[in-house]
């Protein structure tokens, strides 16, 4: 039993209130107990805690330990430069924390947008007097007064109503206002005509209502709760990065510990071992990976913006690439939301609307023209798309009418029809249009070949069959009826002159007007699919992405449209809203596993359930939405997509991506870009990881061969956080390859850092670079007269030149590596060497930075380097070519192997 089923007296009794409202004292008491009538956010981890969290994960802890040990070493052995290293490591921690936080941070503005939908003031009755109070002070038991234009402050049960219509769009997504009535009714509160909800608007009429829920207890509060409580969690890429960093950090730590122990057994000093352990750990950790990923995502989001997909949080860029299911609205997204009259059924035949020639006094056209609230002004049609299409059809056939409207029963979503009473010449006519099933029941005669005939069952059957036939063509079908009225409008003669002035017309009794009507015919309206949608759907199919249409239209229309855009090819599973509500999760799960599925006659409130079940099944879901009550589903989905043109602010704030053109094809473009991003991330991870080997090998040589350390830790950081960064970003801008949308979505089991990436970086590219850097080191050392086994001071020029050569070798081979990493299998020569300008910019930056490090006093001072003669560069250059062609050879072998 709910308050909607109670009589007005019982409702007042339940809430211990009266017609005179509460007393001020009682209201104050209830306010203190129930709290303010306002939307509040659920408790979340504070922002600063989330930021602090970036300093306490596994990798960060490892780096903190490294920094701490460096400072300890600096304290115990001053002058060795270890404090500088400590600061550098802390810098790395901060850089990574900031970049990761940027990726994860998402301002919660959806709730703010929701709050704006609640009124500031409310008119209430307390102690028998009408008052205006701040709406946050409204309490359960208060009597609120509602009039046209009012926003409703709380959920309330109507006690009185006078032709009151409420627009529940913010809750139900229905744009049509609904007639409310104060009489008791059964069923769910949300569907009940005697209940009004917070956040909705009175569009006409007036009423008096008893508040029964306030603040977060309201239906609006429920949406707010779901919008703020549903946490999207880490994106697939973020999860992969966490796994990758854990893996790499563990490897680095274990390698460090292992070689520390090995050095100890070999008999090297603790101090040497210590430097080595820190060095190898730092060398194996790809410090630049997280900033590069973030920057690459930022650039990809800019590219998506140019393709009309506005990305709100960075990690969504890649998430798009791994979606497996897209749940999409129909109207406006798959279709153009531009209604046109396509077919007419009259006199037992279906006629193309464009070929239709009206007869004299054509009542079908008269009804379409006069039972219509669209307008033609300034050479354009204005109004609801359906009405506009009908007005255009009728105006172009019979021209404007001199008829005057006497009154109107507005369209109502429950009744599914609209009726007007018009004066045409000296006669009064009732015109009705609406859903076939409702209109047919109101008719007793039909218009056949210009004459009115008694309607029989055979005609009803024919009309129903025609309606189904039109729906199967994907048309939205409306039935039209009329009758000559005798006297209904006489009392309204005073109203003459107020043509289409609905607000001032009295609302007549539907029972007297909408009876004994003459059935005039059917008009099928077409909302043509967007031309690019068919290709986009095909692309989705090729890419292994399932597309589920969720529409408010009837199942026949939905299926027909789905066929037209090639969304379905066989007999799809169609679930209608009413069946959906009664379906258990288990049944729904089974249905959702079908290949082709359409949801018809659905409302936005159902979307979240569809998304939840799909996610529970392990799907990665993108969902579109535009209404306030789409917000929870948008938050719940892996990718919430809001409409930029028709979307509400709440939906836009809750979404991860905004479609600037409301077009489904834009989603597919974004998916393509997202997939390319993932591939690009793998490319630059290969690139970044390859340089870890030439960074690590000098340390191994140092400990095992008892030579001076060929590469310092600061020089490693110069590569990881300096020279590697921009070329890696260049790889992040590689365009999607044609094959990217021919592959199945990435499996959840597929690792970002899998064997193919690691083996290519660590076992193939890395060793070539390591050979180059060790060659450069020994070339300079031997060239300077160094003998094996001689240890040199850290500030020895020869030693500094040798480490500089080692560093330069890494930079030169990485410049070649960036080309090699542009593809994993395809020949770079085939891709076109000059097709990615960003790579050249990156290499330019890399070389400039290296020149700064090698040839400026600041660079020399910070990185302990020394200027190199030109011939050293030239000696190292062949290694770059070696790497490039060795990689081309490997790729060709791989391609041959695949064939």
């Amino acid at each position, binding site marked *: 039993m709910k308050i909607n089923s109670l009589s007005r007296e019982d409702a007042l009794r339940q809430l211990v209130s009266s017609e005179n409202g509460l007393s001020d004292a009682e209201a104050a008491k209830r306010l203190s107990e129930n709290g303010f009538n306002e939307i509040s956010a659920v408790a979340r981890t504070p922002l600063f805690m989330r930021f602090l969290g970036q300093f306490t994960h596994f990798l960060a802890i490892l780096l903190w330990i490294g920094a701490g040990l460096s400072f300890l070493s600096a304290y115990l052995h001053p002058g060795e430069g270890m404090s500088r290293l400590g600061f550098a490591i802390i810098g790395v921690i901060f850089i990574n924390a900031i970049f990761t936080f940027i990726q994860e941070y998402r301002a919660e503005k959806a709730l703010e947008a929701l709050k704006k939908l609640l009124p500031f003031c409310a008119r209430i009755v307390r102690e028998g007097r009408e008052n205006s109070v701040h709406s946050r002070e409204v309490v359960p038991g208060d009597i609120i007064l509602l009039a046209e234009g009012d926003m409703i402050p709380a959920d309330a049960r109507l006690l009185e109503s006078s032709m009151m219509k409420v627009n529940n769009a913010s809750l139900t997504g229905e744009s049509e206002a609904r007639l409310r009535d104060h009489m008791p009714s059964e069923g769910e509160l949300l569907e009940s005509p005697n209940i009004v909800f917070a956040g909705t608007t009175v569009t006409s009429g007036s009423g008096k209502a008893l508040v*029964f829920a306030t603040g977060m207890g309201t239906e609006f509060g429920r949406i707010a709760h779901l919008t703020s409580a549903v946490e999207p969690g880490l994106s697939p890429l973020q999860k992969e990065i966490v796994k990758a960093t854990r893996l790499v950090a563990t490897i680095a730590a274990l390698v460090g510990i292992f070689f520390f122990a090995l050095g100890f057994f070999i008999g090297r000093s603790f101090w040497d071992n210590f430097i080595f352990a820190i060095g190898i750990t730092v060398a194996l950790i790809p410090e630049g990976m997280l900033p590069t990923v973030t920057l690459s995502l930022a650039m990809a989001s800019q590219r998506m913006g140019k393709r009309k997909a506005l990305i709100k949080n960075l990690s969504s860029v890649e998430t798009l690439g791994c979606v497996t299911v897209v749940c999409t609205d129909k109207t406006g997204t798959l279709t153009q939301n531009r209604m046109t009259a396509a077919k007419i059924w009259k006199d037992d035949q279906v006629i193309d609307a464009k070929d239709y020639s009206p007869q004299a006094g054509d009542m079908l056209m008269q009804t379409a023209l006069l039972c219509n609230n669209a307008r033609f002004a300034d050479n354009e049609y204005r109004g609801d798309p359906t009405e506009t299409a009908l007005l255009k059809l009728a105006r172009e056939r019979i021209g404007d009418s001199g008829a005057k409207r006497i009154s109107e029963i507005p369209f109502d979503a429950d009744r599914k029809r609209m009726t007007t009473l018009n004066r045409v010449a000296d006669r009064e006519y009732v015109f009705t249009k609406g859903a076939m099933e409702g209109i047919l029941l109101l008719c007793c005669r039909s218009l056949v070949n210009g004459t009115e005939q008694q309607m029989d069952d055979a005609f009803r059957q024919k009309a129903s069959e025609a309606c189904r036939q039109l729906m199967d063509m994907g048309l939205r079908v409306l039935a039209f009826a009329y009758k000559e009225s005798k006297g209904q409008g006489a009392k309204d003669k005073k109203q003459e002159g107020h043509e289409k002035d609905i607000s001032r017309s009295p609302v007549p009794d539907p029972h007297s007007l909408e009876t004994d009507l003459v059935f005039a015919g059917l008009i099928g309206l077409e909302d043509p699919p967007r031309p690019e949608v068919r290709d986009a759907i095909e692309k989705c199919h090729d890419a292994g992405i399932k597309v589920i249409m969720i529409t408010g239209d009837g199942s026949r229309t939905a299926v027909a449209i789905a066929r037209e855009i090639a969304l379905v090819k066989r007999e799809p599973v169609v679930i209608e809203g009413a069946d959906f509500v009664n379906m258990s999760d288990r049944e729904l799960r089974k249905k959702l596993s079908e290949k082709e599925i359409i949801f018809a006659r659905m409302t936005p409130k159902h979307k979240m359930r569809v998304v939840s079940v799909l996610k529970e099944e392990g799907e990665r879901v993108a969902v579109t939405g535009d209404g306030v009550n789409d917000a929870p589903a948008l938050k719940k989905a892996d990718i919430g997509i809001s409409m930029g043109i028709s979307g509400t602010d709440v939906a836009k704030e809750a979404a991860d991506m905004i479609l600037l053109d409301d077009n489904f094809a834009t989603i597919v473009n974004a998916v393509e870009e997202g997939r390319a991003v993932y591939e690009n991330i793998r490319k630059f991870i290969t690139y970044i990881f390859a340089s870890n080997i030439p960074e690590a090998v000098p340390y191994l040589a140092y400990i095992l061969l008892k030579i001076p350390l060929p590469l310092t830790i600061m020089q490693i950081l110069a590569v990881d956080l300096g020279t590697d960064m921009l070329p890696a970003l260049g790889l992040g801008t590689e365009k999607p390859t044609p094959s990217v949308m021919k592959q199945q979505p990435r499996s959840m089991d597929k690792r970002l850092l899998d064997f193919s990436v690691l083996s290519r970086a660590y076992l193939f590219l890395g060793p070539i670079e390591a050979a180059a850097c060790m060659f450069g080191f020994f070339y300079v050392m031997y060239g300077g007269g160094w003998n094996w086994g001689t240890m040199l001071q850290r500030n020895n020029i020869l030693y500094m030149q040798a480490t500089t050569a080692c560093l330069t070798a890494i930079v030169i081979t990485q410049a070649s590596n960036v080309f090699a990493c542009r593809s994993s299998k395809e020949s770079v020569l085939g891709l076109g060497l000059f097709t990615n300008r960003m790579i050249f910019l990156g290499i330019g930056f890399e070389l400039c930075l290296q020149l700064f490090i090698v040839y400026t006093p600041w660079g020399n001072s910070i990185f302990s380097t020394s200027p190199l003669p030109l011939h050293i560069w030239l000696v190292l250059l062949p290694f770059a070519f070696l790497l490039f062609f060795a990689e081309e050879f490997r790729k060709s072998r791989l391609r041959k192997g695949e064939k």
Partner: protein
Amino acid sequence: MYRRILAAVNEHLNSEVAARYALHLARVCGAEFYLCFIADKNAPPSVFDHAQEAMKRLFVEAEKTGIKTESITRTGQAVEEIRAIVRNQRVDLLFAATRREDVERRFYAGTVARSLSLKLPCSVALMRVVHMGKMRPTKILVPLKARISKVRERAWFTAKMAECCNAKVVAFHAIKPITSFFHGEIHLTPYEWEKRLPEGVSGFMEYLRKYEIEHEGRLLPGKTARSITIEAAAKRHDLIIMGASERSLLTTLIKGSPVEEVLRETPCDLIILKPRHED
């Protein structure tokens, strides 16, 4: 199990709503119904008036449904007086509404509700009323821990609440996601989760089956309190029935208290049950 049910009423509307739930329960249990109002010594006359009026309304309502009802009004310290009534009348179950302070105070420490829950020798149902438009819940969410004590009484209470409202019950268990260091969170489908339904939950459902109550089990990975409130909001449950926290103050300080979090953020009416009847 419940032969005598006591509802504590005060000057606030919430207590009257909670007492109505108690009344419905008394009807289906065939229990004697007691109403009590304990007034503070310094309470103004208006408090007496409001509470007395509420008692009258409830009394009339109870009489209409043919339940034997007795009302008791006393002056003094609420917890002590109620304890005395519980002892004297051998009350099996007390129904009381939570106050604003229970929601606002951390661990609702020092509140009357907490004292009642801890000190009374009978079972206690503390109710937070959020929505006054749903007098009879049609969907009840029952969050359960993996291991629960006094299963029989919990199931009985839930079954009777469901019976009096003709409601469907969802036994819900929020489980910690399965994670591994290198693989992160491991995704399991609902079917796979169902296989991991804890004994406590399946035992509870067995009782519901025995009491012929329409029910289903649901297991979801996630943070306990947040999962409960999201489930309640998303599936439009009208009432949550959950067990009182059994965590010590120290554990609550370290790990938090799901009961406290749900109490604060519940999107629908909530009953926190402290059962006393051993299985």
